[in-house]
């Protein structure tokens, strides 16, 4: 099931999210074709229960789809729409067509990725999901940066901060896409090292380069494992998301992203920052992902505080076993 879904996601993205298509969307082109395919695929309702017309998959089953979107640097909120639709279904609200972002609440507004193509932003008000049209919001130009825009809805029609649940869900979507992007970065870095010839031999033949790529491989493996751990559905959140697992994973994936990006660019020489190469699409995705829904320090403090303040005063191993263990999804569902 898992691999079948992954295969069809990979197939969909390789047909409709080629790097040319991704670049066109990033440059402001219409994402319509890609989005229509995603809608038709049923992926977007993967986390919606079957009784509400969805596929009713678990987090671990949805993870490969999110990672695949990351591998292709898909510039659309695949994971966020998936999560938002699950939230709306659970609240018994209607699920509109179109891209939905999870907004990071700020001062009555919401931070969203810069010049995103999203049609909707999911917020929270009085602990209930609140869906707002992106086009009805005003962008605060003073606060705009490549990392995000601040949107405000007229007449105080935005959210009120809302529960940690949405924030944690957004972090899960980001870390999954980042883990996927890192897999692709590793593959293309290995390929580049094998093809690029310097001093009369492929740069992969140099021990210094080999050792760097080995370090990168380790971090890619750790990031993937972190994403798997974050997808064990034993928490109170959407589809069983667990904020402690997400804290550990967002932190570990964020750390990996820094090292993986640095090594990938080093192995590519300066070529990686040229417009024509795909590498910067992927490392840019990592950079953006690190900045959304809390970085390493935020989640580290969240996790550390929980550990220290828990009444049971566990030792570190006991805590990790109790809250962050590799339980198989089937046994915890």
């Amino acid at each position, binding site marked *: 099931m898992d691999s079948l879904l992954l295969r069809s996601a990979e197939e969909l993205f390789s047909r409709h999210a080629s790097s040319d298509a991704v670049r066109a969307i990033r440059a402001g082109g219409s994402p319509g074709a890609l989005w229509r395919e995603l809608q038709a695929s049923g992926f977007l309702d993967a986390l919606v229960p079957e009784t509400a017309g969805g596929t009713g998959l678990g987090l671990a089953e949805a993870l490969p789809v999110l990672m695949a979107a990351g591998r292709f640097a898909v510039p659309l909120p695949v994971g966020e729409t998936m999560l938002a639709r699950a939230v709306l279904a659970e609240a018994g609200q209607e699920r509109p067509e179109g891209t939905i972002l999870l907004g990071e609440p700020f001062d009555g507004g919401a931070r969203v990725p810069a010049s995103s193509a999203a049609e909707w932003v999911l917020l929270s008000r009085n602990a209930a999901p609140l869906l707002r049209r992106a086009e009805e919001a005003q962008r605060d130009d003073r606060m705009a940066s490549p990392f995000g825009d601040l949107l405000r809805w007229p007449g105080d029609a935005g959210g009120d901060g809302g529960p940690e649940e949405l924030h944690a869900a957004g972090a899960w979507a980001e870390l999954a896409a980042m883990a996927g992007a890192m897999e692709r970065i590793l593959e293309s870095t290995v390929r580049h090292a094998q093809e690029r010839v310097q001093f009369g031999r492929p740069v992969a033949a140099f021990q210094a380069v080999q050792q760097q790529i*080995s370090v990168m491989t380790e971090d890619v*493996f*750790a990031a993937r*494992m*972190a994403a798997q751990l974050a997808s064990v559905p034993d928490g109170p959140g959407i589809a069983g998301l667990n904020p402690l697992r997400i804290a550990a994973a967002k932190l570990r994936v964020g750390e990996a992203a820094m090292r993986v990006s640095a090594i990938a660019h080093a192995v590519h020489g300066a070529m990686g920052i040229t417009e024509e190469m795909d590498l910067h699409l992927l490392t840019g995705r990592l950079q953006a992902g690190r900045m959304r829904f809390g970085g390493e*320090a935020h989640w*580290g403090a969240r996790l550390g505080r929980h550990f220290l303040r828990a009444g049971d005063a566990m030792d570190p191993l006991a805590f*990790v076993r109790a809250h962050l*263990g590799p339980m198989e999804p089937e046994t915890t569902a």
Partner: protein
Amino acid sequence: MIGALPLSAIPPEDEALRPEIRAFLRDEVGHIPAERRARSWMGFDAAFSRKLAERGWLGLTFPKEYGGAGRGALARYVLVEELLAAGAPVSAHWIADRQSGPLIQRFGTEAQRRFFLPRICRAEAFFCIGMSEPNTGSDLASVTTRAAREEGGWRLNGEKVWTTNAQHSHYMIALVRTSGTPADRQKGLSQVVVDLHAPGVRISPIRDLAGDAHFSAVVFDDVLLPPDALIGEEGSGWMQVNAELAFERSGPERVLSSAVLLDEWSRWLREAGATEAAEALLGRLLAHLAVLRAMSIGVTGRLMAGESPVVEAALVKDLGTEFEQMIPAVVADILARPGLVASGPLMRSLAYTAAMAPSFSLRGGTREILRGMIARGMGLR
């Protein structure tokens, strides 16, 4: 490319061992000062090993007919991670239980299994491993210690060094040359078991910077070995050693060498209060621990499935020892605040762990060797 590691869980029947082990450790280890427990799997206490043996916890994975418990590798995983997290002194039986016993079980003759395995399970046979030599470290195939076949057995000459616990052990399994010359590299190497009380064996402990003597130099001067000293096939020593190393590289001991320090620091934070920076750092260490543990269990799961995830094990060891070395470095940083004095046990554990940490990434294969293996796995060499 290297295969992804699955998320594999410890089965309930193996988890069921844990409460009894934890209760035992509370009674037997809880009173030992933290700075001694910080010695982790370098702490030697033969009496403690015998207590484990009485519980049936040595040779947990050996078949019952040889005195073992016939349990799987994940049952042993539970036992070992609890022993290490508590800082139990496991060194006396460690090598016999982790490596020598499984090696004999896999490659030994029936007579060797019947002789050695029950003794290991009773904590009556402690082992050490003779690999490094004065001129042989990472380049293991360059060993020059030689066992020459002769009437009635083998004649052993040469020198091993950095041999953990040689001075306390009953036996050594040594990697030696049985044919050819060092130029033949991996060919002509074999493993032999040496009774360390045999005439001609000379053991000189080597003191380390903490004042302990975990290692020894061992000289063999015309030591006569019986014909059945050979373990496995003559000339297959290299293959056998490598099979052994996959188990050695991915276990909980590659993640938990600094566990006592981490535990002491978190206890102290609970008492003295934590700054946000300390909370964030602690959270970071917990996140690393969780991911490494899942990776280590994933490799163990694949070993149990009969696979040989040698590269994945190398990957876990390199990342795991980096984590083990990071703990004393970052804890020292956060404790170094003017006007702050942390507890004595915490600071003494820190001093010990920080001093010994460089060895974490050397034992069982250096970083550079492991990264070379990963690069080969990735198709770069």
